Each structure stands twice: as structure tokens, then as C-alpha cells.
């Protein structure tokens, strides 16, 4: 299947949906309208929950804010629904931005619980504010008019709803395939990974959160003007979980899954309403929610992936072309070989009473490979985390390229030119090799939200793709750029991490135990790669405990033991140093 086939399929789907009102019964069209309106929220949740990993139970509140805002503007104050749209969207996005600023730093399930909290609080608010009709709601909301043509019947508003859904899908997929979209897709890999790529994780989360709220606000606006009446019911916590269910059923992480999920859930709900009375007379209302929740639980137990990813496995793979040559990305001014690049001065890090790193000082000069070694518990990893900003030193100073970075955030240190790899490989297993490496170029590129969504970034994207392919070829993984990263063996995953780090055009490459868990052949290949990088004048700092690997490779070694620096020097000198032998072997052999 080529790109053309995908486009043809998309066009066929659009034509089918455009022709539907001429074929379907009015009831089916109304149902389709609800599906479209719910889809918008579910697509937002697919982005937020599926892609970004932020589970929100509160989207219904955003739908409600926009619906009440437009109802207030149009029904209570007599202005145009279009003004209601502007007001609703702006208000919803502002509320989302404030909530996001406050809550998005929360971790894991704390964050999801906070969505339950504000979802409930806002839901209660609708029914209790004097000016919004309390539990009676607001009626006689005017229809949307385009020019003088009012969209009154359900087959008229149908085109507006599905036009918006189609546009959102198109822009959404464009966005996911852009610089910002890749950053969003990296969020699930954890903050340390995202920040190490020079990405401000909090900012990306906030953007994703506001986009999801924006889509919910579109949905709320359409809902208010389609049903012409609103009450607190459709925006309560129960609806919040229904939206979540839609996006999960369709396949969290898949935008199309949002539409499929909304369709499945809405149709299912409709048929449950039709058939339950046949089974249990008079109790259908209660049974509906029971049947529904039970289905959802079964679904979460047995098919967490969702419908779209499940079906996609059986479709032929989209064949993609290798990236074409493109103008190179701008490179940073590299330090001259031999120049002082990194200076650690009297670094100290305590964990309570334990001094993990105690008054350690060393320097890295441009163009050399320096290893920091030491037995288990010597403080290597702590030192490493202090260098990359994952931890702060309690005392001392770290200067990189003439600038103190002691108090900088991880993403700032990464932007300054320190690229790292991880002891426990952190790749995005469901992204291709090429995309993983493209992540590395984030700090070198500029395309923003709108450039990504409207494809104004194509020149930069071509350069990024080309750069990523070049780095893959440089490390020897250029043969299958579209393979998924999760399919690689561990050795190659380590090398892929190096390619990703190289794509950032770093001044200093910091490797955290790169040889750990590798087989001998893989270690030799890795050493060879690092030597070839040195011959390109790249500066490398390795934290490692594998002596053999280090000795044959590096120019200089710093030995740590019990948090303090033991000695420093060329590999041969270190090898014969009695103190080092004692630290490693517990006495002179």
C-alpha cells in the first residue's frame, strides 16, 4: 500500500460521509450528528490520553463550559452563535490553560485524580449558578447561520459537524507527523527522556492539554446549537468517563480511533436502549448503565489496544520512501579541539546523610574520550545525573562551554549541546528508527503548532528526515529506517540512542554505561563506532564499570570510589595504580 492508496481511501470515506444524508433516515442522521460531536472530544482525548499519556476524566466539563458560554452569548444575550463560538473557545482554552498550569506537574495517577476533581467541581457549578438556569438549563438557543442560511434541521448541521471532524482529523494527523507531534508522542517515555532531548516536557503537556480542551469546546458549541437546549446532565462526570471510553474503545493514541470509538459507543448505547426493554421491562434505564460499564470493563480486561490498532494489524503496511537529500540543518559552532569543554569543580551531592558524590573535580577537553569509572556504589550514576541536570549538586559548580549549568533544567543543558544516552534504554518502541532519531533534532528546529498542523514546515521536515537518515547511516542502522525501534535487539537499541543523540548535533556526548548488557561482539562494534566519532572530533564522556571496554577505548580515566575521586590519568597509568586495584579487587593481587 502506498501513500496514494491511503489518500484514495480517505477520499472515499469523505465521499461516503458527504453522501450519507441523501441516503439515511432522519433518525440515522441525528445519530451521525451525535457521533460527529462526540468524536471531536474523543479525538482530543486520543491526543491527550493515547498519545500524551495524560488520562483525563474531566473532558465533559470543557464541553460544558463552551456549551454554556455559547448559550449565554446567543440565547440569553441575543448575539450571534459565531460570537458564542469565539467566546466559548477562548473561555474553554483559558480555563484549560489555568488548570493545566496548576495540575500538569502532578505525577501519574495524581494527575488523573485531579481531573476527576475539577471535572466534578465544574460539573456541579453548571447546576448551581444563578445566571445559567440552574438544573433547568437554558432553552431556545438559536441555530447556527451561515450568512442568512440557518442550519436548523439535522441534515443541515450534519455537513458543518462532519466538515469540522474531517478538518480536525487532517490537521491532527499533520500535527502528529511534525516536530511538536513527535515531542507529544515522546511524552509517554517519561520526563527524563523528553527533557534530555531539549524538549520542555511541561510545555508540551500544556499544549496537548489545551488542544484537547479546544476540541472539546468545538464539540460543546456544536452540541448547544444542534440540540438547541442545554442542561447540566450531558456535562457531568459520567459523560466524562464515557468520552474516555470512546477514545479507549477506538484505540487510544489513534485519532481515527476517536471517531470509530464515538461511533461504536453511540450505536451500542442506542441499541442497548432498544433491546434492553425486551429483556427487562421497566428497568432499562438502570440496566443500560450497568450493561455499559460491564462492557467497558470487559473491554479494558481483554482488548486494551482498541479497535483501530487491532484492525490496522491486518491491513497491508504503508510503504514509505526513503528520505530524499535535503539542505542540511544548521550546525552549532563546535569548540576547537583541546579547548576546555566541561569543568566539574568540587561537586557534592547528598541524599540525607549519605554523600553520594563528595568533592569531585575533573575536566573534559574537546575532542577526547573521558571515562568515569568506579566499582558499584562509587557515585558514577549520581555524578552523571548531576551533569545532565536530572539531579542538582548541593555544592560545587559545573561549567559547560564557558557557561555555568549548575542550576539549569535538563532541557536547557540538552539545548546547550550535551546529548545523552540511558543505561536502561529509553526509546519510543512504537515509533520507527527514523522517527526516534528525528526526535533528537528537536532543539535544532523551530516549526511550531500551526506550521505543523497546516504543513508549513515541509522544508524543515525534509532536512530533519535527511539528517536523521544520515545519522542512522553513520551508526550503521541505515538499512531499515522504518522498522519499529522496539523490534531491535538491545545492542542496536543502544546504538540507535547514540544516533538520536548525534542528531542533536551535540558538543559533548554523555553515555551512561553503554556496554551494560551487551554481548562481546556488540561491545566491539560499539567501541568501533565511538572511535569513529572521536575521529570526527566529537567529545565523549562515558560512565562505565566495564574495565576492558574502557581501557582499549578512552584517552583518560577518572576513577571514583565511595563518592570521592580516587585518581585520574591515562588508561595504562590507571591500570597499574595500586589504589584502583584495591578498590576493584579489594587488595593488591
Amino acid at each position: 500500500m502506498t501513500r496514494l492508496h491511503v489518500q484514495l481511501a480517505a477520499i472515499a470515506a469523505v465521499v461516503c460521509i458527504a453522501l450519507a444524508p441523501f441516503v439515511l433516515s432522519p433518525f440515522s442522521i441525528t445519530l451521525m450528528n451525535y457521533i460527529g460531536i462526540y468524536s471531536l472530544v474523543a479525538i482530543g482525548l486520543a491526543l491527550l490520553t493515547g498519545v500524551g499519556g495524560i488520562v483525563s476524566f474531566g473532558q465533559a466539563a470543557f464541553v460544558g463550559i463552551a456549551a454554556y458560554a455559547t448559550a449565554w452569548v446567543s440565547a440569553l444575550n441575543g448575539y450571534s452563535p459565531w460570537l458564542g463560538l469565539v467566546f466559548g473557545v477562548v473561555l474553554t482554552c483559558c480555563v484549560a490553560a489555568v488548570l493545566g498550569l496548576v495540575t500538569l506537574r502532578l505525577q501519574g495517577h495524581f494527575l488523573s485524580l485531579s481531573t476527576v476533581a475539577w471535572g466534578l467541581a465544574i460539573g456541579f457549578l453548571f447546576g448551581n449558578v444563578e445566571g445559567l438556569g440552574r438544573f433547568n438549563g437554558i432553552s431556545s438557543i438559536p441555530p447556527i447561520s451561515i450568512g442568512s442560511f440557518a442550519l436548523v434541521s439535522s441534515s443541515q448541521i450534519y455537513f458543518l459537524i462532519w466538515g469540522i471532524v474531517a478538518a480536525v482529523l487532517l490537521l491532527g494527523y499533520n500535527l502528529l507527523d511534525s516536530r511538536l507531534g513527535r515531542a507529544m508522542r515522546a511524552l509517554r517515555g517519561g520526563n527524563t527522556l523528553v527533557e534530555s532531548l531539549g524538549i520542555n516536557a511541561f510545555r508540551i503537556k500544556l499544549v496537548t492539554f489545551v488542544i484537547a480542551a479546544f476540541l472539546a469546546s468545538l464539540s460543546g458549541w456544536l452540541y448547544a446549537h444542534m440540540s438547541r437546549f442545554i442542561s447540566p446532565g450531558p456535562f457531568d462526570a459520567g459523560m466524562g468517563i464515557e468520552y474516555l471510553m470512546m477514545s479507549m474503545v477506538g484505540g487510544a493514541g489513534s485519532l481515527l480511533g476517536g471517531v470509530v470509538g464515538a461511533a461504536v459507543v453511540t450505536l451500542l448505547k442506542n441499541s442497548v436502549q432498544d433491546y434492553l426493554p425486551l429483556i427487562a421491562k421497566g428497568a432499562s434505564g438502570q440496566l443500560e448503565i450497568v450493561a455499559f460499564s460491564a462492557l467497558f470493563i470487559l473491554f479494558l480486561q481483554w482488548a486494551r489496544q482498541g479497535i483501530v490498532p487491532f484492525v490496522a494489524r491486518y491491513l497491508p503496511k504503508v510503504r514509505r520512501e526513503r528520505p530524499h537529500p535535503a539542505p542540511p540543518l544548521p550546525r552549532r559552532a563546535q569548540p576547537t579541539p583541546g579547548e576546555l569543554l566541561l569543568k566539574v569543580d568540587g561537586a557534592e551531592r547528598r541524599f540525607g546523610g549519605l554523600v553520594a558524590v563528595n568533592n569531585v573535580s575533573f575536566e573534559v577537553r574537546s575532542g577526547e574520550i573521558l571515562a568515569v569509572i568506579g566499582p558499584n556504589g562509587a557515585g558514577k550514576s549520581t555524578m552523571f545525573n548531576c551533569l545532565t541536570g536530572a539531579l542538582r549538586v548541593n555544592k560545587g559548580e559545573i561549567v559547560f562551554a564557558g557557561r555555568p549549568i549548575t542550576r539549569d533544567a535538563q532541557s536547557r543543558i540538552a539545548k546547550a549541546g550535551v546529548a545523552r544516552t540511558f543505561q536502561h534504554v529509553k526509546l519510543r518502541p512504537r515509533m520507527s528508527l527514523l522517527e526516534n532519531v528525528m526526535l533528537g533534532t528537536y532543539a535544532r528546529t523551530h516549526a511550531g503548532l500551526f506550521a505543523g498542523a497546516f504543513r508549513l514546515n515541509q522544508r524543515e521536515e525534509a532536512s530533519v528526515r535527511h539528517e536523521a537518515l544520515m545519522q542512522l547511516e553513520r551508526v550503521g542502522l541505515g538499512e531499515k529506517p522504518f522498522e519499529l525501534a522496539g523490534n531491535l535487539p538491545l545492542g542496536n537499541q543502544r546504538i540507535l540512542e547514540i544516533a538520536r543523540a548525534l542528531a542533536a548535533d551535540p558538543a559533548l556526548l554523555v553515555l551512561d554505561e553503554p556496554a551494560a548488557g551487551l554481548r562481546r561482539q556488540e561491545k566491539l562494534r560499539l567501541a568501533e563506532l565511538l572511535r569513529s566519532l572521536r575521529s570526527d572530533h566529537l567529545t565523549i564522556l562515558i560512565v562505565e564499570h566495564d574495565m576492558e571496554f574502557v581501557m582499549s577505548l578512552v584517552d583518560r580515566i577518572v576513577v571514583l570510589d565511595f563518592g570521592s575521586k580516587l585518581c585520574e590519568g591515562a588508561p595504562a597509568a590507571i591500570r597499574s595504580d595500586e589504589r584502583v586495584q584495591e578498590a576493584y579487587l579489594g587488595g593488591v593481587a
Partner: protein
Amino acid sequence: MTSDIAAILGIDGIATGAVYALVAIGTVLIFTVTRVIFIPFGDIAAFTALTLAALDAKRFPGTGALVVILACLATLIEIISLVRAGEIRLLPRALFFYLALPLAVVGLAWLTMRAEPPLAVRLVLALMLITPIAPLLDRIVFRPIADGTVLLLLTVSVALHYALVGLGLLFFGPEGVRTEPLTSFSTEFAGVLVSGQTMLIVLAALVFSGLLYLFFDFTLVGKSLRATAVNRTGSRLMGIRPARAGTIAYLLGSLMAGVSGILIAPVNTVFYDSGFLIGLKAFVGAIVGGMTSYPGAAIGAVGVGILESFASFESSALKDVIVFSLLIPILIWRSLASLHSEEEIEE
């Protein structure tokens, strides 16, 4: 607000908070042992109140039918999973625990019912009928995904709550109930009238927290539960079955929720869906305690009760908005206060 009103509100808040505290302790118990944030605990409390009301009215409560259905479902699932695993010799044991025992409880309750028992017996019956529900739900709903992420378990738990609300309406009907007070005793305390019911609530909260403390610190089962909470794999290696620890935690937890339901029934009118707010507010209290500390959860829950009491004096319509808005700053404080190890989210 005069000091008199403040005192009345304060005492009222402490009573409400004590009820939340019982549920909160149960929530923490389940969370630490199974990692499930068991939102439906409030429903269990509400169902207990409804069960007791039905018993008072000499009707056999819907809880019986609910337990029978859940027991059959759980047995079916257990049999299927045992047959699949080829462990047929464990079948009699499974039949005993998942089918015979719950059915025996329901049968016993049904028989005792006919003798028109006194209040004390009815209380025991209500608790007996309610305690099998959570462990059975655990077997049906959570056991198959016991190794999932906290988030997955939370999502399932929220869905389960909605299922229970629907079942509650089905089995108990839409009418609210208020049971007769357990005591009519009342006394003056520093110029404020304190009812015996309030004192009973606080006393029960204290006694059950104390019992739980003794259970955890001085019994082997309690210690095995704590071990499971700290490290599932490690405790499994020590011969503790996490599933069994989970069942015990659910039993204990629903007992606490049941007691709180009995205590709240004479004070507030309880509907089939009243549980959600009880559960959530208890849960806010549990979060204040960081989801891991029992005294912390109890203190947090009492704080929520007092806050709610004062908030409802200021604006009864917006009291829930105030309580839940307050959760956000608490969550932020908790999130900052607790050190998190970076956790990658499941693909």
C-alpha cells in the same frame, strides 16, 4: 458566625469526617495491598445503609440477590481460569469460597430474617450481607488485570462504580432511606448539644482504626498484608499469595465501609447513588494522607468533614464545588511532597 454556630458546625463536621475516615482507611488499605483506587467503597457504604433499612422494614434486601449473582459470576470465572490452568484439583476449594460461602451467608440472613430479629442482629446481618460484595467484585473485575498500571485499575474502578450505581437502583429502588438512630442518648458538651449518634460515630471510627492497627502490627495475616503492600513480588517469594492478601483487604475494607454506612444512615438520608460522594470525599481524605498512611487518611477525612460542614453553612449549593476544588491544591502538595520514581507509561 458566632462561636456557638462554629462549635455546632465543628462537631457536625467531626461526625461526618469520622464516617469518611472509616471509608478512607478502607480505601488506603485496598490501595496499598492491590494498587486499586477503589472508588466504589462509597457505594458499599450506601448499600449497607439501604440493606439495613430494608431489614428494618422487614423486607429482604436486594443485597441478597446481588451477592448471589456476583457469587455465581465469580465462581464461573474462577472455574474457567482453573480449568484453563489445568488445576482441577483446586475446584472444590473455589466452589466453597466463591459459591458455597456467599450463598450460605445469604441463606442464613434469609432464615434469620423470618424470626424478626432485634436491631443488633439486623446490624450484623447487614454487615454480613455486604462484606462478600467487594471481594467478589475483586475476583470478577480486578484479578484478571491485577498487574495493570494504577491508571488502568483506576479507570476500571470508575467504570465499576457506575455499574454499581445502576445495580443499586435496580436492587434498592430510587427511594431514599433514613434508619432509626442507634441511640437516643444525648449530652451537653461545653454548651453544645452532642447527640449519642455523633459520639457513637466518632467512637466507632476510633475503635476500628485501633483494631486495624493491632491487626497490622500483631498478627501474621496483617503483616503479610503489609508485606504485599510494600513489594508484591518479594512477598510472593516469601510464600504470601497477593490474591489472597487482596481478598482479605477487600473483606476488611468493606467491613469498614459497611460500618460507616450503618453510622451515617440515621443522620443523612441515603439514596442508591449517595455512595459516590461519600467515597470521593473519603478519598480526598485518603489523598491528604498520601494514600499510604492510616492516621494520615483518618485526619484528612476528618478535615474534609469539617471543611464540608463549614462550606455548607456558607453556601449549601456550592459545598461540593468547594470540597473538590480543594482537592487540587492538596494533590499538588502531595505530588511535591512525595518522591516519585520515574514510571514509564504502558504502551
